[in-house]
C-alpha cells in the first residue's frame, strides 16, 4: 500500500464511494416532497378560487341567495295582486 498523497486520496475517495457518501440522501424523499407540494398548491388554488367567487358574488354566500330570490318573488306577487299597473302617460298626452 502506497502512502503518497495521490494513493491516499484514491483510497479515501474509493472508501467514500463504497459508503455512498456522494449520493444525495434526500433523493428518496423527493417524490413524497413533490406530491406534498402539489397537494398544498392544489388546495391553495381551490381556496383562492372560492375567495374570488365570494368576492364576485357576495349574495350567494351562506344561503342568502335563496332569501333574496324569495323576496323578489313576493314583491312581484304583491304588485300583480293590486291590479294592472297603469302605463305612464305619454309625453304631451292629456289624461
Amino acid at each position, binding site marked *: 500500500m502506497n502512502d*503518497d*498523497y*495521490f494513493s*491516499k*486520496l*484514491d483510497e*479515501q*475517495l*474509493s*472508501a*467514500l*464511494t*463504497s*459508503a*455512498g*457518501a*456522494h*449520493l*444525495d440522501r434526500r433523493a428518496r424523499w423527493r417524490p413524497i416532497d413533490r406530491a406534498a407540494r402539489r397537494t398544498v398548491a392544489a388546495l391553495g388554488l381551490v381556496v383562492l378560487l372560492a375567495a374570488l367567487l365570494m368576492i364576485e358574488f357576495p349574495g350567494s354566500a351562506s344561503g342568502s341567495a335563496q332569501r333574496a330570490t324569495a323576496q323578489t318573488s313576493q314583491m312581484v306577487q304583491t304588485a300583480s295582486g293590486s291590479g294592472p299597473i297603469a302605463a305612464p302617460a305619454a309625453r304631451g298626452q292629456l289624461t
Partner: protein
Amino acid sequence: MAHPRDHARWPDAELLAGIAARDPQAFSTFYRRHLRLVLATLARETGDREVAADLAAEVFASVMVAAPRYQARQDTARPWLLGISRNVLGHSRRRGRVDDRARRRIGVQALALGDSDLERVDAALDEGRLEVSDLVQALPALERSALVARIVDERPYAEIAAQFQCSETAVRKRVSRGLARLRAQLGES
C-alpha cells in the same frame, strides 16, 4: 455491463455508473485513468504544483458527486472531466482560495503533500506536454507547419503566408483547423 474484474476495460460511462452504484473499484479505475490529465491541466493553468494537487482532489470529489447525473455523449468522459476541472478552477479563482465544497460535502480528510507528490505533478505536466507534442507531430503537414510557425515561433501571419506562398486567410484557416484537431484529440472540444 462488463465483468466486474475487468474494470480497466470498462468505458468511462460504465465506470461513472459504477461510482453512482457505490463501486469503489470503479472510482479507483476512473481516478487512475484520468489523474495525469487532470493534474497536467491544473498545473498548466495554475503554474503551482501544490495548488494543482489540491485542486485535483476537489475535482475527483466533484466527479463522485456528479457521477449519478453523468450522461454519456462520447466514448470518453474527458470533456466532461475537463469541464469539472474548469469549474473548480474558476470557482477557486473567484473566491481567491482552493474550492473544497465537494470534499466537505462527502467528508474527505485533508492530506499532506510530500516532495514525491510534487514530482508526480511535474511528471504529469511533462507527460502532458509530450502528449501534445505527439499530437502536433501527427497533424497534417500544412497544418503542423502553420501551427508551429504561428503558435510556437510567434511569427506574423503575413510572413508565414509569404513563406508558404499562400494568402493570410489560408494560413489562419490552417492554424485554426490544427488547433481544433488538437482540442478534439485532447478531449477539450
